């Protein structure tokens, strides 16, 4: 139960962290971007925390936005 609350509290709503990660690193040419399969597995937490895909999400706002959408969140516009 506490575990569920912990997860929900951290990732359910678009917040300041989303705003930063979704716009800080534009990568319009999609250089080095993750495949959809990898994004899906990251969004489903099927990969370990040390998976290199998470590093990429910190460097690519396009992938981060896709990742958040795949988690079932609303698209991040602002």
């Amino acid at each position, binding site marked *: 139960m506490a*575990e569920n*609350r*912990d*997860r929900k*509290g*951290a*990732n359910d709503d678009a*917040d*300041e*962290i*989303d*705003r*930063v*990660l979704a*716009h*800080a*690193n*534009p990568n*319009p040419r999609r250089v080095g971007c993750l495949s959809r399969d990898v994004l899906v597995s*990251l*969004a489903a*937490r099927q990969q*370990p*925390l*040390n998976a290199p895909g*998470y590093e990429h*999400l*910190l460097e690519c*706002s396009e992938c981060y936005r896709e*990742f*958040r959408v795949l*988690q079932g969140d609303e698209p991040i516009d602002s």
Partner: protein
Amino acid sequence: MEHLRTIGLLDSDGQPFHPRIERVLIQLLPRLRREFPSLQDEVGLAEIMEEAGRRIRHRERRGPIERLHGYAWVTVRSIATSRMRLGSSKLHQKTLDSDAGNARLLATPTSRGTAADVEQAVLLRELLQTLSREERMICLWKKAGFSSQEIALNQRRTVVAIDTIFSRAKQKIRKALGVEDATDGQARHSC
């Protein structure tokens, strides 16, 4: 103009007009193009001239027109004005050529890649860089849905330490973005 000279103007029976009428109409063609620049279709121009020729011929059945050039121009202008009111001409008037279209596209505001977007990205990237790598990763893992316990286990830290790092990272971001910190207490409890 060369086109009309070559094919000639025909009346409704397919017969050429009297050379005097045809000559006057062809002389008026440059003026028609100049005063009605949106009428660029050669066929459309020929139709205007032929309609004018028919009206002139009809009028001349009552007797010769004294000032044919002036009469012909008034007739041509009247027909051209009527054509301009037709739907197809209105569409043509509202259609830009490629140069004008490109100019319009360049001037059209876009919601992506604007100067404001670039400026925002620079500011947010600077803000992100004020966080340590550990703070950035913990924020991301949290957004990915990992619990503090899972992160603590992976990082060989305590849950309290992870929560503290996460809370401080969020405070830094909120402060930099100028967001009110009213929910900070809640955030700490929920972490």
